[in-house]
């Protein structure tokens, strides 16, 4: 079946295919353009090359077990997707998350947001030729991922923010690590401002290119930095404050022209604001319960409890694999069965072991009442929302992701019409299309 562009094309124009496997297509999107010389007359996008059946897969898994799938949606800011899902489930179940867990969630969420913007702008700059900017931004991202890795155990796809709270507490040396990451990121941002803001080549490629009007942006359902670059003030963190955002002071940058340069600049300024939030949260983090007592390694605890039942409490060593029951009140909402049972129980008693397995296999405790809910957070690209319908069992009846970059990419065909072929690249780069979120 010929594509729409091919059917509508004039006789003397050239049809060009920027194919699915293309360095500047951020993953895979196929753009077919009809050209007259270098000017684009008509454009068409074909998506779906990364459709991995997320929504259908989630209908077959328990509410807890589908958490790793949410990481892989917007994979440059995975903690924000986890957060969106966890908040939707908490809204449905009516859980109250403890204060410390909320602060940790904000910290992780802002670290993810900064690394999302770094990746997006680095890739956009690389595709316009500024390879140095890409290398600098990846360097800064490594420091941020270091912080995330020391706390959650993984660099990218972490599954750290869970329903009811977070998985484990921050690691003991996090303040120094966060301070180093913030310092390095600020230095990189300063360098990149110097490299790109007044750069004639970059300005020529991005100023007044890929312009979209305010009404069109709203009509397309744009949210996030791209909408704010057209001048519309809508940020979910300010409009419907969640977690502890109403107590933090930060600004929301707005653009005016809705072109590529404004989208770039809005993201750069948002990164600075996110670093401010990170500093405030780190300074004001409510202290968690102190870890007391000497630690016992998990293998030792299992071996001991085989001989006779260990008297409580035992203290497992404070690493991620042995989560202590005394940290749980600060990290996880209270109530039975919303979080993985503490490891003291699992390693030292048969009932604990059984409840551990029942939790993972049947999702015990996570049986929401029948009904539906929609909740959203501010992601790197805009409003990330989950719409979950439950029929009372331990698996979702329907789970739908409101993907922000689906709406952003829908506008690309209109934005490049009338521009030159080379303008597709910075325009597409400034939208920050993430394949996992677009195609689900």
């Amino acid at each position, binding site marked *: 079946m010929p594509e729409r562009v091919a059917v509508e094309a004039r006789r003397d124009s050239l049809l060009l295919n920027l194919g699915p496997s293309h360095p500047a297509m951020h993953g895979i999107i196929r753009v077919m353009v009809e050209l007259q010389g270098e000017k684009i007359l008509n454009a068409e996008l074909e998506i779906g090359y990364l*459709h991995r*059946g997320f929504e*259908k897969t989630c209908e077959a898994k328990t509410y807890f077990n589908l958490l790793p799938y949410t990481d892989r949606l917007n994979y440059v800011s995975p903690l924000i997707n986890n957060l969106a899902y966890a908040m939707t489930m908490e809204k449905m179940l009516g859980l109250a998350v403890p204060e410390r867990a909320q602060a940790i969630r904000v910290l992780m969420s802002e670290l993810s947001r900064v690394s999302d913007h770094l990746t997006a702008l680095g890739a956009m700059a690389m595709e316009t030729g500024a390879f140095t900017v890409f290398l600098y931004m*990846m360097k800064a991202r490594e420091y941020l991922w270091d912080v995330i890795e020391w706390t959650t155990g993984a*660099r*990218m796809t972490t599954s750290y923010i869970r329903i009811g709270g977070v998985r484990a507490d921050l690691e003991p040396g996090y303040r120094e690590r966060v301070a180093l990451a913030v310092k390095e990121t600020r230095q990189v941002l300063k360098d990149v401002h110097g490299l790109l803001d007044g750069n004639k080549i970059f300005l020529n490629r991005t100023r007044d290119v890929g312009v979209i009007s305010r009404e069109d942006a709203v009509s397309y359902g744009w949210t996030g930095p791209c909408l704010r670059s057209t001048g519309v003030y809508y940020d979910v963190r300010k409009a419907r404050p969640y977690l502890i955002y109403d107590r933090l002071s930060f600004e929301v940058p707005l653009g005016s022209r809705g072109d590529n340069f404004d989208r770039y600049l809005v993201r750069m300024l948002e990164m600075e604001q996110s670093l401010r939030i990170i500093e405030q949260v780190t300074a004001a983090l409510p202290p968690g319960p102190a870890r007391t007592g000497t630690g016992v390694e998990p293998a030792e605890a299992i071996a001991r409890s085989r001989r006779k039942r260990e008297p409580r409490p035992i203290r497992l060593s404070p690493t991620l694999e042995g989560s202590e029951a005394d940290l749980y009140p600060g990290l996880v909402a209270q109530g039975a069965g919303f979080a993985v049972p503490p490891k003291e129980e699992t390693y030292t008693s048969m009932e604990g072991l059984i409840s551990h397995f029942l939790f993972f296999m049947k999702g015990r405790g996570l049986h929401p009442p029948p009904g539906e809910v929609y909740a959203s957070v501010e992601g790197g690209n805009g409003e990330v929302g989950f719409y979950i319908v439950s029929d009372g069992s331990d698996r979702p009846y329907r789970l739908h992701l409101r993907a922000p970059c689906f709406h952003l990419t829908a506008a690309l065909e209109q934005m490049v019409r009338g521009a030159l072929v080379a303008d597709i690249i910075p325009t597409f780069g400034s939208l920050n299309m993430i394949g*996992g979120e677009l195609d689900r």
Partner: protein
Amino acid sequence: MKGAFITTRFEHVLGWARKYSLFQYPFITACCGIEYMSTACAHYDLDRFGAGLTRFSPRQADMLLVVGTITHKLAPVLKTVYDQMTEPKWVIAFGTCAVSGGIYNNYSVVQGADRIIPVDIYIPGCPPRPETVLDGLIKLQEKIQNGRPEWRWLKT
């Protein structure tokens, strides 16, 4: 006998030259692409192994890195790209989705890139740490060094 000595020396030199100048074509689809970017950039450098230059055309590349999930819609594209590469070529399956379909086993995901194209090195991980990727690259370099190219016109 002497012919065999010369060809083995020559194969040794050829293997050495090929393994330290790999031109890669990163066929990036999903989340592993972000770890690929990390591996290729300044922190965990791919360039010090000689594999730093990404040739964005399959005709100029000799190593295909299948990074990320392959869906049924994308499979013909992967096959076309593989066919467009010239011999000698090697394929690395990067990430568990390319190795075996990963956590996705449903109507739209191909259970591994090796259902479509032959794969030389499998790098598991979701996503694999950059050190794992470099380990896989070194294994590929050993394979290139020790493998025998086909000498169809000189049989000894």
